[in-house]
């Protein structure tokens, strides 16, 4: 009997260990650090020198809670960070020509204690760490030495790439590979290119939403509503790099107490080739069929600028064969309203001479702006971010076989015509 009982107990224990294995890698929510934003810069050796400078070390000592008499032991280390007396490794090695780091990665995660009840009013809302590293995603493994949280990328909102980094195609490839390979990272995370460094961007505390990651995420999310911002989720960027070797990534400008998402960076063969400003971006979104609403305020009538708010936009792309050459025609159908006009002008906005005038002028403006953008993309950047090659390969597979060998040159030869068709429908509450 006793043996039977013991056997039953043993089996029970084995089964319990097996069936409770779901708790094997459980992590409490307080122990997790939910990384909201990741910044990647090219590593600059002068950065680390800054941290090693006397000024910085003095500042570090002042902020330490040691009494002034009780000095921190001053250990002199050699280049590899090893103390010559004890032969132990004390500091991370200083950079030299042999061990130069590739990236400087910025990690931002919110302070979850500020959400709870027992939060102190002076507690900071977020934590920011900048570390040199050779791998972007692997940075969390390095940070685990100094942070008592398990860093988790599952709720990553934005990834900011520094201006120096995007100049290097090799680094860009490495970053993109890491981001699309790691299973934790959501593929709808937004990518942004900083005008300066990613660290500057993430270091800024915007007034309205001090947690920078959420701030940038929410702006990018609104991009589908506003015409001046473009949203560039990771999956889409990776996709366009794979399809056409070119991509557009939204741009962010750091300010004092604000961050501005405006314009976009154009990439070709993983290399940054130039910026698109906000107005060019507006047209780019129109041509890509991504614009839902947009706002055009270039039109001038007498001394008033007439703002035109669009309510509905349809974009159609067609391929025509003209004398053996392919021609791409974009038909833009835009409906909208005029929200400001000259008060008591004698004209009514919706009535015919002025309505036609506004429509024609807007058509002209859109056409010239589109032509400027196409010229810029064709000859200055030579980057097919409009997806022309993709379009031809899908609709005219036979023609594409001939064109794809030297697409860079052929892209310049292809005619692109934009035919805007603006319809003025409403004028607010006054005629």
């Amino acid at each position, binding site marked *: 009997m006793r043996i039977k009982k013991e056997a039953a107990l043993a089996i029970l224990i084995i089964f319990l260990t097996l069936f409770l*294995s779901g708790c*094997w890698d459980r992590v409490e929510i307080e122990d997790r650090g939910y990384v909201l934003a990741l910044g990647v810069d090219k590593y600059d050796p002068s950065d680390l020198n800054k941290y090693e400078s006397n000024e910085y070390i003095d500042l570090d000592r002042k902020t330490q809670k040691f009494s002034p008499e009780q000095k921190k032991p001053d250990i002199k280390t050699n280049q590899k960070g090893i103390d010559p007396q004890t032969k132990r490794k004390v500091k991370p090695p200083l950079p030299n020509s042999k061990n130069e780091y590739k990236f400087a990665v910025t990690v931002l995660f919110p302070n979850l204690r500020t959400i709870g009840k027992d939060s102190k009013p002076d507690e900071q809302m977020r934590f920011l760490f900048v570390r040199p590293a050779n791998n972007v995603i692997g940075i969390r493994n390095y940070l685990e030495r100094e942070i008592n949280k398990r860093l988790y990328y599952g709720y990553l909102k934005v990834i900011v790439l520094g201006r120096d980094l995007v100049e290097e195609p090799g680094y860009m490839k490495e970053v993109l590979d890491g981001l699309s390979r790691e299973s934790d990272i959501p593929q709808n995370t937004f990518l942004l290119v900083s005008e300066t460094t990613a660290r500057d961007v993430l270091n800024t505390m915007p007034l309205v939403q001090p947690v920078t990651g959420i701030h940038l995420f929410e702006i990018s999310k609104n991009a589908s509503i506003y015409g001046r911002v473009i949203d560039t989720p990771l999956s889409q960027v990776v996709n366009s790099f*794979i*399809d056409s070797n070119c991509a557009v990534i939204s741009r962010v400008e750091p300010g004092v107490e604000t961050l501005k998402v405006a314009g976009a960076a154009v990439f070709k063969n993983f290399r940054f080739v130039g910026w698109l400003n906000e107005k060019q971006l507006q047209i780019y979104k129109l041509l890509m069929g991504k614009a839902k609403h947009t706002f055009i305020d270039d039109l001038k009538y007498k001394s008033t600028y007439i703002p035109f708010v669009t309510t509905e936009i349809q974009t159609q792309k067609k391929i025509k064969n003209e004398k053996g050459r392919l021609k791409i025609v974009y038909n833009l159908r835009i409906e909208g309203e005029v929200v400001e006009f000259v008060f008591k002008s004698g004209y009514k906005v919706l009535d015919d001479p002025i309505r036609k005038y506004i429509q024609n002028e807007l058509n002209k403006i859109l056409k010239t702006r589109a032509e400027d953008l196409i010229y810029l993309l064709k000859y200055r950047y030579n980057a097919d971010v409009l997806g022309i090659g993709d379009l031809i390969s*899908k609709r005219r*597979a036979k023609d594409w076989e001939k064109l794809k060998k030297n697409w860079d040159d052929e892209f310049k030869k292809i005619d692109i015509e934009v035919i805007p068709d603006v319809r003025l429908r409403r004028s607010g509450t006054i005629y």
Partner: protein
Amino acid sequence: MIINDNDKISSFQCFVLFVSVMIGIGIMFMPSSVAKAVEQNGWFVVLLGGMLSFLAFLLIFKLTMLDPDVTVIELLTNAFGKIVGTVFSIMYVIYFIIFSSFETRLIAETAKEFLFTLTPNEVLVITFLLSCAYLSRYGVEVIARMCEVLMPGIVLIIIILSFFVYQRLDFSNLLPVLNISFLKLLKGIGTTIFSFLGFEVFLFFMPYIRRKDKLIKSAFFGFLVTVLLYEVIIIFATADFGAKEMQTMVWPTLNLFRDVTVLEIVIERPESIVVALWMITTYTTEIIFLMTTSLILARIFNTKEHNFFVFLQLPFIYILSLIPQNISETQRFMDYFSYFFATFLALFLPLVTYTVLSVKRKVKKT
């Protein structure tokens, strides 16, 4: 104790069994391997693959209808004699054991990547196998009822998730249509084989089916639901990622449903739901395989009960499932397995048996 000899399954349960046994782990990887072969024409290849598998099933049906009251094991013995017949039956046992170990390894691999990053592979495999074996000890009817409960939920959840995926699709990625050579098309059909395999378990279920005449109908609807579900997944995946990006992915189907975001709060990052869902679909496939193997063994050794054979095969499945080094090697083995072993047992052997038996009958009559 359930009396196994009495259990009979209705034609609706047959339909459910078809869907449950065919939708397994294969669909997780199918879009990428199809994209490697035929780029954006995956939807067409899946359609053809489904039709071909249905034809293969018709052959199996023909064979089993020669004598509907026995399983294929007796038919094999009739056709080739006692020794050769038993050898072929044991080949089926080996086939299902290898098949189960593929399913087990792949589900463990998927779960490890997305759910239990620190749990050892061995633990995942053992828990999965034990929970499958628990149910497989019962008869066909119990399992059919279990599938009846699980299958509609799975199909429903996949369809609901698809609606949320729909908003970010770009259907121009499916163009140009059918610009591939015939040879490539054939190769593409080959890659879909593994995803449709499983219907051959009906070689052994004939005595348990209540309305044999309705089996074709339930098989047709079973194949229809499976093909439709695969079509939805492959069309959506191609439209979302494009054929080029899909070739680089390990789990295109999971990636498709992973980044579904509904109203920020309601559903965010449903990957754990999706992985759990696929665990259930694999679970239904696995229980049917385990039970089929033990049924064959019970027939070979002429025992009344089959339930103690279920646990007998677990060690083999466990060891086999841990043999491949990584997921790509598993997939390579899977390809060899489905090209040679499966084609032999699901297509070639039934064909030969059918011819031999019908010739024998004609000889007897004359």
